[in-house]
């Protein structure tokens, strides 16, 4: 074998920038980068030019100034003297709150509707198709407005007043009004921490029991009942502790006071409207995902499991769902993303999410358009990236092993 060398390294010629695969890519990238930098520089110089001409500047100082407006729904202490930054935090938490609630209910709704749509019951499956198609094909904004109008039709608190009131509370405990839903709220007395500990322990107990049952199944083949013992473990100690400790937690019932109900816990009507609208709208999409996921599991899987003697419920739990979930969860998570993004329409029903506080009132009261819009986008971007990161983690963890 003769020793050969590489092709003679010819000197660099400018034409190689276009014709040589090694440099061509670099050339293109360089051009793209230069164009990009120019574009950005152009926009930014315009920005500063325009700002200077209008005598404005970019400054985030306004975040420290007092906001001056009130917010009806807040998870952290806030009043009109708090800063704009705090108002933004209130809005942020409200966005997260409604998104979180809507994700849960939309999932429930979607899973139920998706499964029912596959039901062999003709009527039910038709009904679910109508639900899915109706909600999927109409803009979410219209649904938010419609549902917002719908909850307005609930009775006013006034209707609960007087001898022959036209509306009445459910079980004397729950009032559905067009200002919000009032439910009894807990009042914590002495010893409630002990109760909490007991409750937490029972939850741990249930988990332990389920572990034990599975282990026992593996060890001996005996299947222990799950539902009743779990319930017992969950409830009995807490109930006992509740009475032994002398009812450390009591309920505060809502009562009509002044213009509105007082006491108890109030869930504001904007929250309810937005929550409901996002849930039913997204639920329709999730229903489709669920249906597609279940259909994606080959029919052969069910048959193979059945011919091994597994019962329908076990087939669902052990064979179909684990596979369907792989198909369902990625689009499900992007639906969660959509919920979060769609919650920015909150202002249509008067819910104080971040778009309404930071991107609405603050923007408007301070006139700091660029600053607030940038902050707003940044916030949504962070949520989206966080959710996508979770999704990627999930995807790589469940990816089926292939050759």
């Amino acid at each position, binding site marked *: 074998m003769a020793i050969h060398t590489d092709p003679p390294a010819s000197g660099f010629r400018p034409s190689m920038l276009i014709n040589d695969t090694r440099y061509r890519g670099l050339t293109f990238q360089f051009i793209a980068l230069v164009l990009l930098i120019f574009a950005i520089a152009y926009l930014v110089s315009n920005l500063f030019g325009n700002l200077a*001409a*209008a*005598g*404005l500047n970019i400054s985030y100082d306004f975040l420290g100034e007092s906001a*001056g*407006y*009130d*917010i*009806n729904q807040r998870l952290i202490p806030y*009043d*009109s*003297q708090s800063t704009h930054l705090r108002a933004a935090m209130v809005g942020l938490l409200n966005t997260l709150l409604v998104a979180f609630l809507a994700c849960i209910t939309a999932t429930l709704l979607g899973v139920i509707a998706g499964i029912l749509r596959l039901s062999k019951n003709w009527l039910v499956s038709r009904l679910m198709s109508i639900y899915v198609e109706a909600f999927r094909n109409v803009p979410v904004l219209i649904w938010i407005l419609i549902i917002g*109008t719908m909850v*307005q*039709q609930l009775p*006013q608190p*006034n209707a609960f007043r007087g001898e022959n009131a036209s509306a009445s509370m459910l079980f004397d405990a729950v009032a559905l009004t*067009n*200002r919000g839903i009032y439910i009894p709220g807990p009042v914590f007395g002495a010893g409630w921490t002990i109760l909490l500990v007991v409750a937490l322990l029972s939850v741990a107990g249930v988990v332990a029991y389920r572990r034990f049952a599975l282990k026992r199944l593996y060890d001996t083949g005996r299947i222990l009942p799950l539902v009743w013992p779990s319930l017992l473990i969950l409830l009995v100690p807490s109930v006992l502790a509740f009475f032994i400790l002398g009812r450390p937690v009591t309920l505060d019932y809502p009562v009509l*006071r*002044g*213009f*509105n109900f*007082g006491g108890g816990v109030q869930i504001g*009507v*904007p929250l309810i409207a937005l929550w409901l609208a996002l849930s039913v709208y997204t639920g329709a999409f999730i229903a489709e995902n669920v249906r597609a996921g279940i259909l994606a599991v080959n029919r052969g899987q069910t048959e193979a499991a059945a011919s091994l003697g597994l019962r329908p419920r076990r087939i669902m739990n052990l064979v179909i769902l684990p596979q369907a979930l792989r198909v369902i969860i990625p689009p499900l998570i992007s639906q969660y993303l959509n919920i979060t993004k769609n919650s920015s329409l909150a*202002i*249509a029903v*008067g819910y*104080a999410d971040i778009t*309404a506080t930071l991107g*609405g*009132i603050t*923007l*408007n*009261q*301070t*006139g700091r*358009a660029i600053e607030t819009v940038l902050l707003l986008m940044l916030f949504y971007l962070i949520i989206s990236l966080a959710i996508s990161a979770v999704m990627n983690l999930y995807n790589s963890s469940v990816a089926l092993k292939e050759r």
Partner: protein
Amino acid sequence: ATLDDVKQRGTLNCGVVTGLPGFGAPNANGEWEGFDVSMCRAVAAAVLGDPTAVQFVPTTGKTRFTALASGEIDMLARNTTWTFSRDTDLKFDFIGVNYYDGQGFLVPKALGVTSAKDLDGATVCIQTGTTTELNLADFFRKNNISYEPVPVETQAEGQQQYLAGACDTYTTDASGLAATRATFENPGDHVILPEIISKEPLAPLVRHGDNDWADIVRWTLNALIAAEEMGITSANVTELAASAGDNPEMNRLLGNEGNLGEMIGLSNDWAVKAIGAGGNYGEIFEKTIGENTPIGLARGLNAQWTDGGLLYSPPFR
């Protein structure tokens, strides 16, 4: 400069409210009408000679300032309160008050409330991004009572919420309340509470920095006010302008004496056109929000100074 832009374009871009009866709202045929709208038309007439050469740009409380700042509109005539920070920090120029107003509360009669101080614990509908929103917070804080805001974006929404009983009271400029109430099926079932909790001088505004343009708008408004004072109406303006009369100020205003028009870069009959567009201040008031309209507002503070009001146009000299 804005004036050149407007002339070149041939239309005036005027920001107005998305819909507040009496002040600015499209009628069934889609033509904009109202008190603020008339201001736009007067400026268009003064500048372009054609009161219909206006492109109305509806704005919400939220979008109005950015629309003006970004140059999308040439002026904003949209029941906007003249405040310090809007004038200075937001870099606008308010060109003069066209309606002296204050914030009030609208409540259903059946509620039995007679004073705003009785509103402890009430639910209040409030347009976001307005001065009234801030006043509201101040008022309740000062009186140490609580309330729950229901934020709405537009007048229409506020009305919808209020009528549905989603709030106990609706608060905004008293004029706005009157306009709102006027559209109710049974206006008599609702009262405007006696307290006026703030000063709301409503004023048209333009971008800061273009003083020539600001002057044009400012003096158009003054022309309308002065016209009323001098008894010039849309009916007699052409007649009066035809020949110089014996009132030198009127002569100057109508272009028969001096060259005021030239000084602001317009033709000399600019004021004639402005007044001809919709009449003088008083006429506009009566036609759009006055006592004989459903809105039924009395002149009150907005009467001429000669009648004990605050309207007081600087002299045309």
